[in-house]
């Protein structure tokens, strides 16, 4: 699933240090089917959070989102739930890489996080690098082009296949 250029949705606001054990508990570590993974998303945060995730929800979180284990389902389950992007003050680096490799868009924008209240409607324009919410507009630094190419392709594997196909085409289809 490639990231859309413009999208909007309700904010699901979370705090700092949301770790992979509460995003996707270790006891479900053997599940990789998207439909099954999304059932356990945020289980460690209780029904008050887990029950509110809807396709189109935009997660808005504080510092160090995704800290802890390298388990890829933390990114996969969020994507499976239909979340188009996460806006946070900062991301844990393994989670950041896993999300890029899954084609899940991450936006680092501390000022927007402070201004967005839980449930508020949030609009994102990737091209202009702007978030609109609660009457305010917030700019975020774009990701480097080569990372956006991976996200746009729908993840690292899809990106790799595109490259291989392009090379084959360049060699005359051999």
């Amino acid at each position, binding site marked *: 699933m490639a990231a859309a250029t413009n999208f909007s949705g309700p904010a699901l606001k979370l705090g700092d240090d949301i*770790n992979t*054990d509460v995003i996707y*508990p270790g006891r479900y570590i*053997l599940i990789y089917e998207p439909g099954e993974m999304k059932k356990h998303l945020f289980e*460690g945060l209780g029904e008050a959070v887990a029950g509110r995730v809807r396709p189109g929800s935009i997660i808005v979180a504080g510092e*160090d989102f995704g800290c802890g284990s390298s388990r890829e389902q933390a990114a996969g389950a969020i994507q499976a739930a239909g979340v188009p992007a996460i806006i946070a003050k*900062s991301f844990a680096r393994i989670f950041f*890489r896993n999300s890029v490799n899954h084609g899940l868009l991450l936006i680092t924008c501390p000022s927007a996080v402070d201004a967005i209240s839980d449930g508020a409607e949030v609009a994102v324009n990737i091209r202009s690098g702007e978030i609109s919410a609660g009457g305010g507009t917030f700019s975020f630094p774009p990701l480097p082009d080569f990372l956006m190419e991976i996200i746009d392709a729908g993840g690292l*594997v899809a990106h790799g296949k595109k490259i291989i196909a392009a090379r084959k085409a360049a060699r005359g289809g051999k």
Partner: protein
Amino acid sequence: MAGQTAAQKIIARASGRESVGIGEIVWAKVDAQLMHDNQGPYRMGKDFKSLGLPIWDKNKFVLTADHHNPPTKDAQTKVLNITRDFAREQELPHFYDGEGICHILMAERGFVRPGGILTGTDSHTTNAGALGAMGIAVGPTESIGVLTTGEVWLRVPETIRIDFNGKMPLGTWGKDLVLLALKDIGLDGADYQVLEWGGEAVMSLSVEDRMTLTNMSTEFAAKSALIEVDEKTEAYLREAGVEDGWEAQTTDPDAAYAARHDYDVSNLSPQIACPHRMDNVFPVEEVDSGPIQRAHIGSCTGAKLADLRAAASVIKGRKVALGTQLLIAPASKAIMNKAWEEGTLGPIIEAGGVLLPTTCGICTGTGLGQFGPGEVGISSANRNYKGRMGSIDASIYLGSAATVAASAVKGEVADPREFLT
């Protein structure tokens, strides 16, 4: 040219550059790639095969079956069999099935070389820093890229320097140092950065005990960790069969650190991370856990030979308290065998310790001896998030293996110093 950090020099070498600047994104060649059953072929096998490309260098690729081994559920058996099939199909020369926990195997089998970069599908890949190498965690999907090209993109990180000065007091180990720093610096204190550990106290530790610092650097959200190479490192490397073919890197005196932290350890008490965060740390004197049902010596963090020796020094000739179970899972078979031969493991078993397989076990919430609902326990492992070792309603304390042993004897979180003279 401004002074360079050791991390900059390591990344420059791997990317074929004279130097690299902080914040630059570069492509780097990796010296080794690690993958385990939990974030391995079960997850990435199909995608890998769909590309139709070979593994870039099988001699630099290590696959382990340690997270689900031995299995207690059918789903784990399936994962293990897919892992074994992959090793067979790809004719992997370095597949370790139940031999030990990946990070410890990487070090003791000679896959970690000073000045190198290794990537691994596990957050504790930072462990390699105790041997002067940059261990960097990646996900299983990303590992497909590494496996087919031998390269990874890296953002050149800043470095935070942490020095522990003074002499290590009786009853304290590397674990107590890392917990003290976690209390101060916090769970997100080093996001995207490298933690460089040093100072008299750190260099006085055994190489294995230094690994506790680099291993748990990931708990600060660090990208990687490093410790300077000295004679002890060289002796460890020789033991692992690494004689030459490496070049250690050090930070230039005029290089800029993002931050520096200095601690005097002369009066350090054993440190405890209380539920449910690794930075919720207090000196052992201030902790009142009430009765504990579990005491666990295990994981890549807390079950090396140095950890087992620390535990034995406390528990030898004593007994585990009634109502508490002491679990012990050495970090590798080689460590278990050495611990038997030298008489370290015997006294722990005599005291009532239950010997478990030399794999990850309850530290990944799998295997035998998981914490039940309402249970309280202490572990020498690395994380105490809710649900980490089984039930989401269990409470986990973290401490050194010596503190775990003392706690097992007392039946509550306890100070190892009263058993040491």
